[in-house]
């Protein structure tokens, strides 16, 4: 069950004198819903950016399913099955909701290079897009232009685009930020279900501690670019170092 999906070895990154990642060694295991937490500036975003390919690491290696992906460009990592969603809304604003989901669905099926093929005949992809829309609860908005959605729905679409790339490993950067409680419950249910189905392993960066502790099987705590805690929610809650630098009264209460 617990096979290593992603392995990070001695990963370093500095911006000037600020160390954003200091010798990070981590293994993300398949099927284990993992959360990464840490105060602002702890290096969570830097870590995700390095793992997903938008930021080159200063040193260290990243292995995905045993293959070295340290120097691969973003789209190659996505095709291997490593994807992410974004904290801010990052969709295709003037395209329909359907097309937003369709772009990654076409790309990962190797259909997107078809120059003269008719888009209308991609029925296999359409079925998959509809399934995803159904799942995230945007089926009724399929024809709406993305920029006309409510902010919460845009956030839901954001997660949907990431899911459409059929990732084996998916980083969700604050997936529920800006959602109303109903949308939040729906997305969290989706994540939990998909995680149990086992096709996708989720790694969540989140500020909301309720979500982290209710959802995760494993929690990793970052502080100034270093891993200071790594374990089950119970272990993290009782870890004195973590309590000292981060959780403070929130856990004590």
């Amino acid at each position, binding site marked *: 069950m617990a096979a290593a999906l992603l392995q990070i070895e001695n990963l370093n990154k500095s911006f000037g004198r600020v160390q954003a990642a200091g010798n990070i060694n981590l293994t993300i295991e398949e099927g284990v819903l993992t959360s990464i937490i840490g105060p602002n500036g702890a290096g969570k975003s830097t870590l995700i950016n390095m793992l997903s390919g938008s930021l080159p690491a200063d040193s260290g290696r990243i292995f995905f399913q045993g293959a070295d992906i340290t120097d691969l460009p973003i789209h190659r990592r996505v095709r291997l099955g490593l994807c992410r969603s974004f904290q801010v809304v990052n969709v295709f604003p003037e395209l329909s909701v359907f097309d937003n989901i369709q772009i990654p669905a076409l790309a990962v099926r190797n259909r*997107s290079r078809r120059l003269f093929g008719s888009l209308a005949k991609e029925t296999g992809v359409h079925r998959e897009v509809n399934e995803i829309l159904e799942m995230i609860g945007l089926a009724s908005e399929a024809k709406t232009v993305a920029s006309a959605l409510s902010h919460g729905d845009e956030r839901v679409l954001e997660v949907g685009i990431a899911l459409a790339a059929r990732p084996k490993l998916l980083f969700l950067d604050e997936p529920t930020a800006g959602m109303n409680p109903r949308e939040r419950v729906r997305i969290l249910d989706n994540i939990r279900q998909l995680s149990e189905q086992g096709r996708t392993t989720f790694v969540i960066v989140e500020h909301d501690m309720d979500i982290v502790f209710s959802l995760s099987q494993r929690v990793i705590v970052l502080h100034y670019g270093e891993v200071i805690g790594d374990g089950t929610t119970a272990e993290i809650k009782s870890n004195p170092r973590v309590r000292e630098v981060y959780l403070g009264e929130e856990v004590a209460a």
Partner: protein
Amino acid sequence: MQRSWNIIIAGLTLAGLVLIGLLAGRFVVYLTSRVMILSIFALGYNLLFGRTGLLSFGHAAFYAAGSYGLGLFALHVSPNPLIGILVGVVCACLLAAIIGFFCVRQTEIYFAMLTLAFGMMVFSLIWNMRSVTGGDDGLVGIMRAPISLGIVNIPIIKPRYYYFLVLLFLALSVFLIYRIRNSPFGLVLAGIRENDRRVEFAGVSLKNYRLGAFIISGTFAGLAGALGTLLESNTNPFSAHWSHSAEPVLVSLIGGIQTFAGPLVGSAVFIVLREIIERFTQNWMLWFGLILLVIIMGFRGGIVGALAGFKK
């Protein structure tokens, strides 16, 4: 509903163009030929501009590649027009691949400036390589040899016959570009326009798709260049000049960059207006500039975009 409307409009336009070819006078036939050639140039260009969101100021270079490719082939190798057009198109395609390779690494203003720089380089090369390109005289005396189809010879030297050859190529271009716009590839291009950062996280190689769009648009520019050269029977370095690169930009803007038919309508407006204004004044640019100002500020989304807006 929308679809049947589009088919009716396309059919009427085609019928109108055929009627012009059969009935209109010499001058109108010539002018409409020019409109159709500019349409091919702009339709291809708008795949890059309106669809992919990349503003190029260097597409005259590819027009010139098609133009000189055909011209040199016709003068030195064979006057066969169809092979000549093919040679021109291939030249443009190769040049677009080379220039595009460097340009698509940049975005926005850097991309635009780089295409401008390459365009200027191509212009200077043509200007200075006198022995090959004829320098500022250009290439003259390019004949429209008859097209032989087995026993039938089509004398395209006659403007009316040539008009129908251009119409055929326009129809082919419209068909191909329509297919490309409505293909999976075309959707990815729209995704690049909308959000080039996100599209990589959809598993798409940004550079390759940009290059693809660049080469396709350059290839159609080459087709326009080859057809334009046959129409005028000559070509000159100014076909590669940056001011010529501005034409497809203006035409797309006039017609509407987010619409399929925009470049077609824009080409007609551009050429006809220019022809009319030139009759009254030497300063056609001044008056044309004013009219352009009104169209761009008054019709956001171009003429076609505005009309489509009315219908809703």
